[in-house]
């Protein structure tokens, strides 16, 4: 499906562990939660990785660590061969960008669509004259009507908001996108539109993608490779075909049998 050379990882997660410590302030006994334990994943260029697990399994923590917004206790994350923590915030943001779950809370209600897309360009001091054109081009690419560019998130539908969030993520031309449950809060008919958009963009830009979801059916549709997370660990890692045809781990089997399908 993609022409990029194989075995050239865009993202490598090496033995990442993260424990949250709660010393709870005064007089509260300290306790800790192991959010991630020795997680290793690698994603090849142009590949989509599906990351499946239930709430509290550590997938959101992993997303933050991939984005460099959270530091692992041990292990490291390499983006494009470079350790993510060694990169400055500006360099990092040109390599890797997120798309989040809640379409409304992922856009600042104080900004119009246009301003939302302007922020990354300002931060990165891009050519000022180019900015309006880049913004409008990007809106076209994600299928967002130009005439709504001055609307605020409150005036948009969930699907439209998610298109803007995707546009914001792509405006810096990153090779890698981290999608954290981008369709979970949407109606199924809108979910289909967003899935189609992601598929189109992936083809057009040769994007690599981490697609985090609890919905196995959606992951099956989008991912080339699937990792199942359970209690902070990778329970199973397999190609899409292998995982759905022949699940190995007990938790994967449970998850598969619990998935409700309209048949």
């Amino acid at each position, binding site marked *: 499906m993609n022409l990029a050379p194989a075995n050239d990882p865009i993202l490598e997660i090496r033995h990442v562990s993260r424990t949250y410590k709660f010393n709870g302030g005064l007089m509260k006994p300290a306790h800790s939660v192991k959010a991630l334990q020795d997680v290793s994943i690698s994603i090849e260029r142009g590949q989509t990785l599906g990351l499946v697990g*239930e709430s509290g399994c550590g997938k959101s923590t992993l997303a933050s660590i991939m984005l460099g917004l959270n530091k692992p206790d041990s292990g490291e994350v390499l983006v494009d061969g470079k350790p993510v923590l060694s990169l400055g915030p500006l360099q990092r943001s040109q390599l890797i960008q997120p798309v989040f779950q809640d379409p409304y809370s992922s856009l600042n209600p104080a900004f119009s669509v246009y301003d939302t897309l302007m922020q990354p360009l300002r931060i990165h001091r891009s050519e000022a004259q180019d900015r309006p054109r880049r913004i409008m081009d990007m809106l076209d690419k994600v299928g967002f009507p130009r005439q709504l560019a001055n609307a605020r998130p409150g005036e948009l539908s969930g699907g439209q908001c998610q298109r803007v969030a995707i546009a914001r993520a792509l405006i810096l031309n990153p090779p890698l996108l981290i999608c954290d449950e981008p369709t979970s809060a949407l*109606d*199924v*008919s809108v979910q289909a539109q967003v899935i189609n958009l992601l598929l189109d963009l992936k083809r057009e830009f040769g994007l690599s993608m981490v697609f985090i979801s*609890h919905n196995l059916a959606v992951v099956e549709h989008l991912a080339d490779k699937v990792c199942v997370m359970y209690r902070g660990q990778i329970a199973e890692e397999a190609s899409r075909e292998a995982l759905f045809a022949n699940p190995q781990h007990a938790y994967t089997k449970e998850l598969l049998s619990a998935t409700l399908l309209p*048949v």
Partner: protein
Amino acid sequence: MSKVLEVNNLRVDIPTEQGTVHAVKGISFSLNQGETLCLVGESGSGKSMTALSIVGLQTPRARVTAERLELLGKPLNSLSQRQLNQLRGKDVAIIFQDPMTALNPTLTIERQMTEGVMRHEGVRRQDARTRAIDLLNKVGIPQATERLYQYPHQFSGGQRQRIMIAMALMGKPSLLIADEPTTALDVTIQAQILDLIRTLATELDFALLMITHDFGVVAAMADRVSVMYGGKIVESGPACEVLKSPQHPYTQGLIACIPVPGRTTPGSRLPVIDHEKLAVKELS
């Protein structure tokens, strides 16, 4: 089989500043004892409003009208508030979507479970407690005798939904309305809760009106299904038939746009519903 619920031409209108919103535009359905009906639709289709207006819990400003709205032969829409209160929690009970906020955080589970039957049936507290412990055991809350005296925040989300179910069943209702009861829960927990509801429905033989947006839930639970779109029921029928060969274009689109392993080709574009075309059809 006796008829539990009969709804005929139900309308819900909500007056707002910009004019009246017709949330539910004249829908009809009925439900027999021991039967499960799923009302399925996307957000804004009026499915939740339908569920709430049956038990009179719609937003205060909403106007509910119906040619017939009968529970066990009693006309719900012409009852006084007092008479309606005597039905609620006894003949009809309801469980909601978000188990985290549906229980009162400042009262014990015991208090919340027993208050309904103590009022409706004049049961002594001791007897109500026994019944509560029985039901908690039944819905799978371990150590029910001790946990009865705990507060909602000491339970997980799945457990709280189990408690909600137990609480709804305290009055031995003939009709249980479940408004998206598993939407806020994890996949494996969802499967457990649906399993539980199904088992209880068979065992206790109540009619179940299930509100959902998920055709997966429909496939798992429903005897019959009614698809709602824009405040109307566009298609009704036995669940397996509607799922296998949907007749209405909206139902067809809604089922086709869901990725299903084995049915849809991975990486292919999914069919998308053309809402404008449908809207024209529905409004004309």
